[in-house]
């Protein structure tokens, strides 16, 4: 994918504040993210950095009245989603974008059978509108079979708590892809599962997306998963994208100090132990640092970093938000 392809989803300078009593938790501080049709985009960052908030805001799934969006745009095929009414949003939700939620156990209603929930998802999708009960049932059974669960007829009548964690995850994936959508958002799929199941889930997800020609936004806190599954990686820190580039490029030349810290924290088979990693923790969103949000943890932070927020600068396709990276991608001393 190249820059010239018109974006399917384009998030520009998105700021989002959660209302906390009389205060505001300024979680998102200008997120820029672009997804081209059919592209697989990774969103990587540590827990609490705003990954889920970002994608939930795309579908309008954050509690209305519980947050405000002081700046930014979310363009889906050029149309600003933030201006849509709930009814217009439903059109995006039932035909364009589907999301797999983080916790499969929590994302399934415990008092309805898997089949009944899936039937309703088909029923209220744009595609399923004209379908009768029998056709909907066929779609649901096919979808359960597609995620490699044998005996879909039996699973159809199961309640979520009768399924294993891996099965719940598969059902959630089936739910998201069984009717036509152009963009799939996967929020840390398989995180709660053991590694072998997790890699099966990832392989299946890749296959589903490829078969259907869907674009994918993959949220993960694992660089390894992002490298395997995505074309472009966006590194997120404390509500901003700090670095964005083609996956191999991010691994070959990590430019942002945060990305470099993340890379060092990954244990390697070659040995040598785990490096220093990154000292400290995410900033307090109620009173975030005024300049670069990474400055308090950054080994290279200077006065300018603490006072001014660096913009995401484009260095021939590799974008990074740091004052210490020169136009040629080299580290600058300030």
């Amino acid at each position: 994918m190249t820059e010239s392809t018109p974006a399917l989803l384009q998030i520009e300078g998105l700021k989002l504040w959660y209302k906390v009593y009389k205060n505001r938790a300024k979680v998102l501080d200008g997120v820029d993210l672009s997804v081209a049709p059919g592209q697989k985009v990774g969103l990587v960052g540590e827990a609490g950095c705003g990954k889920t908030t970002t994608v939930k805001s795309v579908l309008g799934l954050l509690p209305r009245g519980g947050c405000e969006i002081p700046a930014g745009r979310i363009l889906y095929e050029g149309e600003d989603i933030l201006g849509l009414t709930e009814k217009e949003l439903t059109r995006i939700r039932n035909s364009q974008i589907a999301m797999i939620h983080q916790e499969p156990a929590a994302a399934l209603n415990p008092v309805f059978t898997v089949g009944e929930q899936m039937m309703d998802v088909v029923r209220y999708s744009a595609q399923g509108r004209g379908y009768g009960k029998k056709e909907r049932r066929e779609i649901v059974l096919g979808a359960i079979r597609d995620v490699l669960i044998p005996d879909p007829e039996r699973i159809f009548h199961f309640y979520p708590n009768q399924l294993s964690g891996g099965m719940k995850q598969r059902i959630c994936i089936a739910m998201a892809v069984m009717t036509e959508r152009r963009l799939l958002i996967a929020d840390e799929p398989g995180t709660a599962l053991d590694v072998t199941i997790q890699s099966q889930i990832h392989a299946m997800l890749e296959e589903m997306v490829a078969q259907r020609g869907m674009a994918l936004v993959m949220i993960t806190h694992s660089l390894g998963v992002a490298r395997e599954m995505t074309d472009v990686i966006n590194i997120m820190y404390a509500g901003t994208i700090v670095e964005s580039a083609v996956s191999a490029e991010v691994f070959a030349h990590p430019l942002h100090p945060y990305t470099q810290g993340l890379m060092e924290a990954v244990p390697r088979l070659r040995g040598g132990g785990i490096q220093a990693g990154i000292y400290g923790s995410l900033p307090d969103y109620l009173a975030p640092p005024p300049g670069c949000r990474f400055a308090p943890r950054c080994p290279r932070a200077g006065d300018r970093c603490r006072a001014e927020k660096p913009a995401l600068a484009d260095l021939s396709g590799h974008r990074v938000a740091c004052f210490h990276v020169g136009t040629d991608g080299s580290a600058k001393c300030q």
Partner: protein
Amino acid sequence: MNLSDFILKRAVMSVIVLAGLSVVIFVVARIVPGDPARLALGSTASETALETFRTENHLLEPLPVQYAYWIGGVLQGNFGLSTGTKRPVAKDILEFLPATLEMALLAALMLIVFSIAIGALAARRRNSFIDGAVRVLSYIGIALPGFVVATLLLLLFGSLWPVIPVLGRLSPGLTPPQAITGFYTIDSLIRLNLPLFWNAFLHLLVPAAALCLGGLCQEARLVRSAMIENSGRDFLTAMRGYGVPERVLAGKYLLKPSLIPAVSCMGMDVAALMSNAFLIEVIFDWPGISRYGMTAMLAKDLNAISGVILIFGAIFVIVNIIVDIVVAWLDPRIRLGGA
């Protein structure tokens, strides 16, 4: 375990419960002080008459034998003679039970419908004026004892603002419909006597409202808090994200899981309606089974006491089975026994 197995298991258990209850009732009724023969025949009865009464009623046999006689009769619908009314207890129960059941059933209906409706409304308009009013008023409703509510309602509608009749089952001068079910409202409807139906229905309203108020307020609060708690759950967000419309989310995916805590609580409150009916019956001059039972207790009318308590026990057990079934239907985790 599927639903029918679950119901069968519950039914078997309730038979055991009722058998145990019958033993307890029988023993308690027999060991309380006082001579039933003397109470039945009066202080002027001769010693021979007392002896004859005791022999006829097996009062001289050992307790287990007495129990066998008694339970054998009960199983055939024969609770023995009431020493107070001099009639078979079964006949008395048939006469007085429908009045209480009619009131309790309407109270149960009001409790279920209004608690869910009010709770759901308050949850949907969270932090609005309506929600605030519901929260405050429901506290008052829970805190006020039933007999205070009943007395206040009697004062209000009986004297200050007589828009609705509050004493007895029918206005004076009206003849009750011929008994088919014993429920005046249903019997008058069967006879197509609409004015009589309306009169009987109006008489029911205030006692039933007084009877169910406490439970109604409690359950409305439970429905409200469960709906608010569940509305932030991932399973709703996920469904919303798939484009499922808000009315389906609220009426199906939010409502069902939110009813579970309230329904368990409703079961106990609905079952308790029968026993709480006693004070209501006294206050509203309602010719029901609770009043009959209380008279029997004061007169040490053993057969009547046992009969009434056993009927109450049976109703309690039946209501509990129904509630268990409803909860099991609502919450598969219960009938499936967890993951």
